[in-house]
């Protein structure tokens, strides 16, 4: 089953979405800040990364930029999962190579899981 790295500092979101994905059979690894997230991405080479933007220690966009610069992990699809809806942030994320950009408040738990499934299916 696919391996997902979930970089998110909100413990509640980590738990809810993390447990939901585990219930679907995915292997989910959690990181609560940008630095740990980047390290786990490079060492664990997940199939998909769910990335929040406002993170302690390293901003999500910096994490994305560093991921795209590293050839070993540059092809991993990254779903931005945030509550920031500024057009500037969306554009920057797309420019840096985000696979898709989801505003948490606009999606139900099931819709996010469906997006994860779609991105993973495309990759396969």
């Amino acid at each position, binding site marked *: 089953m696919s391996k997902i790295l979930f970089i998110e500092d909100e413990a*509640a979101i980590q*738990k809810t979405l993390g*447990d*939901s994905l585990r*219930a*679907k059979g995915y292997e989910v690894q959690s990181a609560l800040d940008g630095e740990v997230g980047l390290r786990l991405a490079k060492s664990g080479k997940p199939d998909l990364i769910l990335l929040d933007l406002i993170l302690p220690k390293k901003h999500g966009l910096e994490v994305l930029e560093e991921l795209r610069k590293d050839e070993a992990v540059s092809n991993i699809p990254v779903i931005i999962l945030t509550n920031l*809806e500024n057009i500037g942030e969306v554009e920057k994320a797309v420019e840096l190579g985000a696979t898709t950009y989801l505003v*948490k*408040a606009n999606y139900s738990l099931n819709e996010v899981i469906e997006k994860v499934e779609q991105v993973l299916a495309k990759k396969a």
Partner: protein
Amino acid sequence: MDDNFFQCNIFAQCKKYQVPLRQCPQFLFVVMGIIIIIASISFYVIGERYVSDPRIVALVVMMVSTILLVIAFTITRSFEDLAEANRMKAEFVNIVSHQLRAPLTNLRWATQFLLSEEFSAVAKTLSTGKESEYFDIIKENSARMEQLIDDLLTITRLKEGRTDSKKTKFSLVGVAKGVVDEYKAFMAASNISVDLKEGKNTPLVFASYPLIKIVVENLLGNAINYSKGGGKIAIEIESLPKKVQFKIKDQGIGIPVEDQKYIFEKFFRAKNAVKAEVYGTGLGLFIVKMILDTMKGRIWFKSQQDKGTTFYFTLPTS
């Protein structure tokens, strides 16, 4: 018809922008127009009847032009100020919506997961999938939203002067003792001890009791929250000429030097506070400063990163 009347009513429009008349673009524009009309007629009459030397007329025209230039500059500045206020309002709405969305998403997703078919499977197979943990998420996030809404309402009421700001004479020591008592359980859970010292013959302060209680609650709450892993908090209240000084010292994470100048700004959170994963709305110290300004008090602080912070405030005795 009403709209047309509103467009012509300069005073109503200036009131809508919430700026004084001297900074209201519409008003200044009308003043400039009146000056131009009066000046043109006056130049004509004066030049025609009384002044034979055209240099004097030129000098007067230059002087009036300078006045018009100053007014035009003020109008431009007023437009810039209004645009800035508009930008800040948009930014404020953006931040508030983000701050409200986070706990709302947590609530929504936790509820959706509790109601989902997968939940019972998870509860059986995962050690983490207990109902109570999701109810805790719901409880915590409801409290977060409540805190944010309370803070925003306090700010709005303070701005509009609708708070319980009736001044009376009361003991600051009494307020501090009461708040420390309320926070006893929180401090015990956070492994924190507090030492409250009172100077001799400390006079009563003249301020609003409920608002000053909010100030003390915020400062003590911050001292506890940012003392990661426990420590000591020292509170000292002493008398100064015509005022009383409150001092609260913690051994917490401190405020980085580069963040210190922003600490009383709305929604500002120091970098190390975010890194330390201490939850806050970023409105507490903004409210504290706002209250003390209203009460003719003063607030300042000294802080060293990783060593701690000392906040001071004073209140008048009469």
